[in-house]
């Protein structure tokens, strides 16, 4: 089984430095591209590879790049931005790639910047990833000294430099237009779309924003070709995916597996199944803002199309398992409390709706819930859904809620009539 993203790295091992990376074939794709390819050809290979964004939305990467204005009349200033904000609860994949193989990311970024002819790149890194910050800063210095960054890279005439920008918190910064405002030094409020960033982005210039894992796929695609990449997936979809599992399983962790690996294999084989004394009840498949999947979905291939057909989203591919001794209502309360706190506050349904949802769920957990609360929660799932808010944050926030109402309705009812939480009757400290 091929693992282009992780074949040379191990959790906990020190990062590959430049020399070690080059020994694995690193920067060969960049040398080839700069020597013998037109920028558009790089974009075409990525388009042909059918690579889809690994940051959550699954947009086709090559298609996104093809929207950037090219040629004589295109703006000279363009930006290539790596989204390394990774704040989706339950997600811990980009950190691993950055801390273990930073040059793979840098090479992917330089290739992308070459494809759209951007002289400047930024890595937007979440503030809390201090180790990633050190590793990346060092790798950027190495790449600059070796001539992979800077003026006239490898005598090709192409100039590009990458700057590391560390953030100062807030989940909304990961939304790509909020991220652009944060990079400009402003409050991270999402922007109206259209226009989309590939045409009007950072400081009004064409800008590509891609996720860390997405970009780490670029060097192997350019080196081995689109057909090779398409052959890696188990289903119709191309490539591998970093899948992660957390919760009460025997071996929480992360594995690079073919896209389309069945949920059951990930949870039972790779994560070692449920811990002794716990039963599987469900899973949020791709970070906090995705709908629950339950037992009937265990044989689902974990690819974008199949998970969507089952009513959820692949998202970030890092899943959080719900066991039979954890209260689904409590879990949803935890999620909605997070979303209520992290709402950027720009639009009313999200700013006021989410704290309301949080209060209702709190009340249910404490035993103050009533039958009508279910209707009220249903209503909120609708009013915060797609198309009713300024950005995709709110629709994401109600995905776990609406699916919990569907699959765990009985659990909600068991809290009613002053009974409170049947799972966690004692206060937190006593658990």
């Amino acid at each position, binding site marked *: 089984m091929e693992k282009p993203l992780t074949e040379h790295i191990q959790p906990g091992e020190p990062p590959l430095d430049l020399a070690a990376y080059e020994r694995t074939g690193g920067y060969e794709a960049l040398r080839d591209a700069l020597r013998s390819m037109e920028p558009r050809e790089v974009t075409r290979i990525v388009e042909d590879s059918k690579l889809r964004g690994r940051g959550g939305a699954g947009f086709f990467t090559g298609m996104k790049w093809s929207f950037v204005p090219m040629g004589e009349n295109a703006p000279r200033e363009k930006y290539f931005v790596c989204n390394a904000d990774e704040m989706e609860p*339950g997600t811990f994949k980009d950190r691993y790639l950055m801390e273990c193989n930073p040059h793979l990311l840098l090479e992917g970024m330089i290739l992308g910047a070459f494809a759209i002819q951007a002289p400047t790149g930024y890595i937007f890194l979440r503030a809390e990833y201090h180790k990633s910050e050190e590793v990346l800063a060092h790798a950027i210095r190495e790449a600059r000294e070796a001539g992979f960054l800077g003026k006239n890279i490898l005598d090709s005439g192409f100039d590009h430099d990458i700057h590391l920008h560390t953030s*100062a918190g807030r989940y909304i910064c990961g939304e790509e237009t909020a991220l652009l405002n944060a990079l400009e*030094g*402003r409050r991270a409020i999402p922007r109206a779309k259209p226009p989309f960033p590939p045409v009007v982005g950072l400081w009004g210039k064409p800008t590509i924003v891609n996720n860390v894992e997405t970009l780490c796929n670029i060097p192997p695609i350019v080196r081995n070709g689109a057909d090779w990449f398409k052959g890696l997936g188990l289903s119709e979809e191309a490539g591998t995916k970093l899948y*992660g*599992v957390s919760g009460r399983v025997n071996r929480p962790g992360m594995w690079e597996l073919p896209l389309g690996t069945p949920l059951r294999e990930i949870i039972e084989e790779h994560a070692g199944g449920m811990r002794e004394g716990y039963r599987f009840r469900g899973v949020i498949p791709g970070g906090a803002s995705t709908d629950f999947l339950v037992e009937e979905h265990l044989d689902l291939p974990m690819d974008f199309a199949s998970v969507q057909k089952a009513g959820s989203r692949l998202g970030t591919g890092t899943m959080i*398992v719900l066991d039979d001794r954890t209260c689904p209502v409590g879990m949803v309360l935890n999620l909605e409390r997070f979303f209520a706190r992290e709402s950027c506050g720009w639009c009313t349904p999200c700013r006021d709706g989410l704290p309301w949802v949080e209060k209702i769920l709190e009340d249910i957990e404490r035993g103050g819930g009533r039958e009508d609360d279910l209707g009220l929660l249903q209503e909120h799932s609708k009013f915060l859904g797609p198309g009713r808010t300024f950005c995709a944050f709110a629709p994401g926030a109600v995905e776990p809620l609406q699916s919990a109402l569907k699959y765990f309705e009985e659990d909600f009812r068991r809290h009613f009539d002053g009974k409170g939480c049947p799972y966690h009757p004692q206060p937190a400290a006593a658990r």
Partner: protein
Amino acid sequence: MLTDQEREEIEAELPHYPRKQALCIEALKVVQRHRGWVDDEALRDVGGFLEMTEHEVDSVATFYNLIYRRKVGRNVIHLCDSVSCWVMGCDRICEHLKNSLGIEIGETSDDGRFTLLPIPCLGDCDKAPSMMIGRELFSDLTPEKVDEILRSRK
């Protein structure tokens, strides 16, 4: 006024951005690193340097949870309270921290040693529950482990 050291650190980032106002967040982080938190004077200092009003700078500062607009203790504990940590029992760790320090979330201990704040997912979900103090990450927390960590901090 910004100190020479602060000014130097902010200016080092200037060439990376086409407009100097882009440095607002970075400048706030620099000042906070030296002064512990961002008071009103710090806003004016940063604003003076970036040609922004103190209110403009404040509107940025108050958006980001890792810019502290109130005095904090020498060690700021950021306890992850997101979903993976919750499933793995972060509420219990939180209670333990609150009892040991005699403070609620958002407060600072009387001796000025610790401030306790929540933080979204630290990306350490396979080793939950987790917390961060300063630049350091602590994983697989138990009450005993927390005691040890607290003892080791001045």
